[in-house]
């Protein structure tokens, strides 16, 4: 009796797992609107930064086309999209910029505006922020 119960228990677990694997849950990348969505978010963010007095100076010497390309790739990769991030690592990019905590959070606010403008729901915004948050230690005060 017990063995039978154990067998059916494992069978149920197995079925649950395969069911999970086959009905492919949309990735965060999909929820952000896929390629078009991520492109738009990055475009909005570049516009936000361009109009921003507080943090524009960090980007003044960056090449916009390269920044755009790398950021799209980075957001795509970090949200489980079909990309691999090929840009420089976070520490190398930000060393010497001495970005402080306040400016970092200001960029987060601009990213939220950019997602807001693209109509990304609050709960999806938080999921992208959650994946980006651990990068902060490789960005500020370097």
């Amino acid at each position, binding site marked *: 009796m017990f063995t039978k119960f154990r067998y059916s228990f494992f069978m149920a677990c197995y079925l649950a797992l395969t069911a999970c694997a086959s009905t492919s849950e949309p990735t965060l990348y999909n929820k952000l609107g896929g390629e078009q969505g991520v492109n738009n978010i990055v475009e909005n963010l570049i516009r936000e930064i361009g109009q921003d007095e507080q943090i524009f100076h960090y980007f003044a010497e960056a090449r916009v086309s390269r920044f755009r390309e790398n950021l799209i790739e980075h957001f795509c990769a970090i949200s489980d999209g079909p990309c691999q991030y090929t840009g420089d690592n976070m520490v190398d990019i930000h060393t010497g910029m001495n970005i402080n905590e306040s400016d970092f959070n200001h960029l*987060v606010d601009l990213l939220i505006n950019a997602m807001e403008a693209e109509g990304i729901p609050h709960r999806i915004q*938080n999921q992208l922020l959650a994946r980006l948050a*651990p990068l902060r230690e490789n960005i500020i005060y370097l």
Partner: protein
Amino acid sequence: MRLILFLLTVLLTSQLYAADGKLIATPGISQIEGTGGGGFVPWAQLAGYGSRDEIAANVFCSGANVDDYDLRVCGAQATFYDRIEFSVAKQKFHVDTLDLDIKQRVLGVKARLYGDIVYSRFPQISLGIQHKKLDDPTVAFLLGADDDSGTDIYLSASKLHLGAIAGYNWLWNVTARSTEANQTGLLGFGNAANGNQRETVLEASTAILFGRHLALGIEYRQKPDNLDLKEDDWSNIFVAWFPNKVISVTAAWLDLGDIAGAKSQKGAYFSVTGYF
């Protein structure tokens, strides 16, 4: 009228200078003893929006109205470089049945020991003290308290988990407080017959942020019972609104249990904090 003037002053002054280096809503509000926190519970976050390069100053007023008592508190905090917070609060506790006011002053200091509520891997940890003194100890001594002043020491841990609950941000805070206060000090400290009875109590808050500007949460504060008056633990359910980094408005429903023989004290709470 006084509230309107207060709000206007906050809005006008903060146009001139405001620390705004933290993400909106993350510093929380001002708790009844003046410390940055929730409503009852001191949190690990330091008060105000100052980042580690900024100084923040905040003012607040809160009012609670339960069946047989009401409490008015106003106070201020100054936080330096997101490392150390100083606070002051003046409380006026009105006892309806006796028609008298009990006044208490609280001075607080809190230091951030580790972490950042949003970004660090482990929760933010802070250590703080609250030194309390009654203006007039008559009621406290009448009820058998040992002292008219006392110092609480507390250790708090808190964390905001981004997108953690169905995509909403989730905040929790746990505080351990060593105290000898009766009803947070309003009824004095310790018991004259048994001497000072320092005890460690636990307090906790948790909230879900529905959007960037709105938090809905609950709090629990364990309390000692030095005076053998069946002092109950406190709890509340609150909604806090952060329209911008200049002001926050909080409303809550309180359940304070029995207070000095008056049964089951429940009522409303309202609090406004202005951030500079």
